[in-house]
Structure formats: structure tokens, C-alpha cells
């Protein structure tokens, strides 16, 4: 098989936290991302889901090089990125782009749309001034905005339109991979649907690969063929879309799916629900063993207290599903 577009291996990103000791060394380490591995094929869309604080945004930022990795590797078409110098990174910046959550904060309020879109084109050396202008107009058209609004400022657009500008900017360098960090969660439902449809259409049209980060499983289901579930800095399950929603294999995935309210009163009032007890533990003091075990409804089912002592490894089964859990499969 050919090299995947993106290969992430044992990637970790730790932050110093809390007070420092007399020597200046941090007393505590926050393991935001702690040993994550996955592959992403060209043109594929992988969803990364989990609750706040599980490390999904940190993972995204470490992959695109906004944070240096603490350990582990990120390979893009076989080239190791984490050890590259700033200048060596440059060609990959064009090919790996990012869309951020907050369309209000991710655009410079003092730049017009024309300037916002021209900047990446100029930096990546994509054409002369006139060509770049035409390209900016074409980008606006591609994301469903009126090219005549190219001289407007971000505040003149609504939230959904601003997110379209952010998408146009990400498309400017003709990337192979777009890392989308909660791109629709700040939008209203009716607008959210428009942006989801746009992202699906653009992917088809330009052959893009997405690493799509979201807390909303239903959104991910619409855009991604494969889904990875994160909990406290680790991936606990990876499966194809159909398999994950039909038969979630990790107890955390099961609880997460069952917690989503269903927009149909009849279904919502009769379905069985797994309500987890307790909060997500602090990543500064993660539980021993499986980090999910204090909230896990099945923790008693594994003999020998392994859940509390031994961290489960992400294992791949015959169908290619991955799961990190001590429970017998299918139980």
C-alpha cells in the first residue's frame, strides 16, 4: 500500500502546569495529548470527537505545527514534520491548512476580505497581483459568497458568512489536508447545515482530506467516513462510520452516543440512556490504569482490578476496528 497522506505515531504534547519548584522545573505536567497514533489517507475524512479538555484541539495544533510535539512523529507523505526547521516547514504550510472554531476571532478585523485572501496567495507565491485578485474572487464564489463583497470587512458579514471566509482562506493555497477545529459549533442550526454541506461539497470538488474535530457526533457522522474517539488525551476507539454508530465498542463511546438528545420526542422519551456519573477527571491528575475507569459502568466486569491498574492498549481487531479497553469484545 502507498504511504498515507498523514501518519501520526505516539504523538504527545505535554504542558508544564502549576507552580514551579526552586529550580524552575514545573511541579506538574499536563498531558493534553498522550500517545496518539492514526493514519489519514489522501482524500479521506477522519472525525476526531471527544468532550472539552480531551485534547482534540491540542492534537490538531500539534499536527499543524502550531505547538511543538513533546514526543512522537507526524509524517506528511512520508516526511517527518515535527523536526523540521521553520523554513523547511513552509512548503507544507500551503498543503496543510486549518479552519478555526470562532469565525469572529480568526479573521483580522482591519483587513478586507480581499486582503485576507491575498495574504496566503502572496506568501505562497501564487501568481502576480492581477491573477491573485481573480483567484480571490473565484475562492469567494467557491464558498458561496458574492465576489462583489470582496472589499468588505469581516464585521459586515454574519457568523456563517465569516466562517465561509475562513474556509476560502484555507482553500487559497490549494491544500491537500484541512484540519477543521470545531468549524460549525459556533453557528446556529440552520446556518450550521449550510456550512456542513459546503465542506462536503468542497472536499468532493478539490479532493481534500479532512481531519475534522468536533464534539458533536451527529455533525461528524455527516462528514467523516472514519471516526476516532478521544478521552483525556488518548484515543479510545477508532472505527468506520457505520460500525461506530451501529455498535460502539468502547464504554465511553457508548455513553457519549447515548447522551446525545434525539430531536424526536417519541424516540427521546422511550430510548434507553446511559447516564455517566461524575465529571471528566482533571488531566493534571488522571486516574491510574484506564483513565475512564472511575466513570465506566462496566469496570466491575473485568477480573483482577486491571482497569484501575493497567492502561489498556489500542488494539486492532479482524475488521480493522480499534479499541482500548480490557473488556472482552462483544461483552
Amino acid at each position, binding site marked *: 500500500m502507498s504511504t498515507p497522506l498523514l501518519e501520526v505515531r505516539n504523538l504527545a504534547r505535554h504542558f508544564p502546569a502549576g507552580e514551579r519548584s526552586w529550580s524552575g522545573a514545573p511541579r506538574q505536567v499536563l498531558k493534553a495529548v498522550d500517545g496518539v497514533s492514526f493514519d489519514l489517507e489522501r482524500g479521506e475524512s477522519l472525525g476526531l470527537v471527544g*468532550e*472539552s479538555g480531551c485534547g482534540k484541539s491540542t492534537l490538531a495544533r500539534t499536527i499543524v505545527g502550531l505547538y511543538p510535539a513533546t514526543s512522537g512523529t507526524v509524517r506528511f507523505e512520508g516526511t517527518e514534520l515535527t523536526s523540521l526547521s521553520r523554513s523547511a516547514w513552509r512548503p507544507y504550510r500551503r498543503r496543510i491548512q486549518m479552519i478555526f472554531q470562532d469565525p469572529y476571532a480568526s479573521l483580522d478585523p482591519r483587513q478586507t476580505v480581499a486582503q485576507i485572501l491575498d495574504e496566503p496567495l502572496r506568501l505562497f507565491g501564487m501568481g502576480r497581483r492581477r491573477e491573485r485578485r481573480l483567484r480571490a474572487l473565484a475562492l469567494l464564489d467557491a464558498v458561496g459568497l458574492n465576489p462583489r463583497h470582496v472589499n468588505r470587512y469581516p464585521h459586515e458579514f*454574519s*457568523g*456563517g*458568512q465569516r466562517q465561509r471566509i475562513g474556509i476560502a482562506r484555507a482553500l487559497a493555497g490549494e491544500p491537500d489536508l484541512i484540519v477543521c477545529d470545531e468549524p460549525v459549533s459556533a453557528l*446556529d*442550526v*440552520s*446556518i*450550521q*447545515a*449550510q456550512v*456542513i*454541506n459546503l465542506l*462536503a*461539497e468542497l472536499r468532493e470538488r478539490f479532493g481534500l482530506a479532512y481531519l475534522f474535530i468536533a*464534539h*458533536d*457526533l*451527529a*455533525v461528524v*457522522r*455527516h*462528514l467523516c*467516513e472514519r471516526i476516532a474517539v478521544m478521552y483525556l488525551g488518548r484515543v479510545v476507539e477508532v472505527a468506520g*462510520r*457505520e460500525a461506530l*454508530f451501529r455498535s460502539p465498542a468502547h464504554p465511553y463511546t457508548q*455513553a*457519549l*452516543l*447515548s*447522551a*446525545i*438528545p*434525539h*430531536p*424526536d*420526542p*417519541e*424516540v*427521546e*422519551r422511550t430510548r434507553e*440512556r446511559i*447516564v*455517566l*456519573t461524575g*465529571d*471528566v477527571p482533571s488531566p493534571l491528575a488522571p486516574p491510574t490504569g484506564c483513565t475512564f475507569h472511575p466513570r465506566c459502568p462496566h469496570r466491575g466486569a473485568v477480573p483482577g482490578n486491571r482497569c484501575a491498574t493497567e492502561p489498556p492498549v489500542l488494539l486492532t481487531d479482524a475488521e480493522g476496528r480499534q479499541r482500548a479497553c480490557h473488556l472482552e469484545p462483544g461483552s
Partner: protein
Amino acid sequence: MALLEVRDLRVRFETHHGTVRAVDGVDLTLEPGETLGLVGESGSGKSVTNLALLGLIPSPPGVVEGSVRFEGEELLGRSDEELRRIRGNRMAMIFQDPMTSLNPLLTVGRQLTEVLELHKGLSRRAARARCAAALGEVGIPSPEERLDQYPHELSGGMRQRVMIAMGLLCEPALLLADEPTTALDVTIQAQILELMQEVQRRHGTAIILVTHDLGVVAGMADRVAVMYAGRLVEKGPTGPLFAAPGHPYTRGLLDSVPRLEGAAGEALASIPGSPPDLAALPPGCAFAPRCSEALEACRAERPVLVDLPGARASACPVLAGGGKKTEAPA
């Protein structure tokens, strides 16, 4: 007698850009123990409606008109002092963001006991005991210790539980919950919603649940009212309304929600365009520019909310044709 009767509620703000009609003629009734879901997107006026019920709209720039009758008494036009006796006592509220609505400088205990000292005249010691019990009731472990902690020492889910405990201290007849779980993760949201239902069963509290999340409404509300651009476009019992929406906006909203079942990867139905500028509303139906069913008449004249069989009402002459007309708001 209805617990709450809102008639022709109007809230407008005078701004540099002109008059913004945030709430424009809203009628609502609520019976004791009932849950009403107030649904709409950002800027639809749902939160402003809630604040107006509580008398919390600052004036100026806000102007509130209409009638709000709560337990038989008119609330609009009351003095702040009179309203303070009702707020937190007979009528309580839970806000979206427990971080900004709890005072960061006071301990949890101080903020809770204040409510009972003020409304029930309890001594601080007696109030403290009651508050510890209240925290226990909303599932907070070791409540005695929590009373001496500050809000920043608690997790988001814990803080929202404190807000709920605070709202329910005086056993209010009506609880106004504005996006109470929006800032929380789904697994914590599930816990909080279950808690609210349990508390409601125990105390017979009526709830107005303001939310944009149709899934939350489906599980919680007995009746639903849908707002768009400051007006009610549809209301009715939850089941029938979800099964057969009586307004194109409601239908569009329901179709836009990504689902966990059915065909995946297909394009979602979406509502074209975006909500209107409240300072420059179109003359007819505010939804007409985005509506696939709109007729000439919809763009010319503002449709009124028309009563329909089955305790429903809709402001769409196309989907709800043939109903009995209610009085047009003056």
C-alpha cells in the same frame, strides 16, 4: 388560573442603528408544573423574553410593554424592590454560563445562604444547613465542604448544579432556564437534564426552557413555542409539533439538525440565507425571504398567529390555512 400569562409582550431597544424590536408581540401561558420549550436561533428574542419576564431589561435603552401576569399579579411596571421579593423566591432563573453568573469573589455558601436569609428570613446557621441539603439534593458530593469553596474551584458541571440548587432553594413555582446545558459536555448535559426533571417531579415546578437544541426540547418540554426575529411563529404540544411542524421555519430547523440515524453523508436540508436585521425587518413575514412556500401576500402583510385544532397555533397562512383567526395584536 394559569401560573403565568404573557400578553402581547414587546421589548424594543433604541440604538444608534434605529429601533430594534427584540420581542414583538409574544403571547404565552404556562400552567403549574408544566415545561414550555422556547426555541429559536441567536437573536430570535428568546433570551430577551425571559429577561423581560424577570424585569431584568435595563431601561434605557430597553422599553418593555404588554402584560406579564404571574400568580394573578401583574409584574410589568412594578418597582425593583417589589420584583426582588418575587425573583429568586417564587420565580427563579438559571443562566447559560455558570462561570459568569456566580460571583467569583464570594464562596458558594455565601451566595446560597443569602437567598434564604433575604427571602425566608432564616438565620445564617439555619440557612447554611438548608443549603448543604440543597447541594446534596442536586448530586454534589460532600456538600458541607463545597459551601466553603469559590466558584473557580468547581468544574463546569458542578457550577451548573450550584446554579440549579440556588434557583430551587425557595421552591419557586416557576423556573426560567436559559440554555442551562449549552456550555456543558453532552455526558454532563444528560446528568443535568435528568436532575431538572427529577426536581420538577418532586416540587411541581413549572419550567420555561430556553434553548436552541431541538433534541433537549424533545426530551424535556410538554409544549413548544418557536420564535423567529422577535415573534412567535408557532406553538403547540411537543409531540404533534415535531411530527408535523405548522410553520416552514420550524420544519427547516428540524430538517437542518444532523441526525445519528438514517442516511449518512448526504447533504443536509438547510435554510438558505440568514436571519434578518431586527432594526430593518421586512414589511411582511420576517421569514418570507428565506421561505420556499412564501406567497405574494406573505411579503406584503405580516401574518398573525392563528389558533389551530389540537391546542396549536401557527403564523403561516400557507401551512396553517383555514384556522380560526385570533385577535391581531394592537
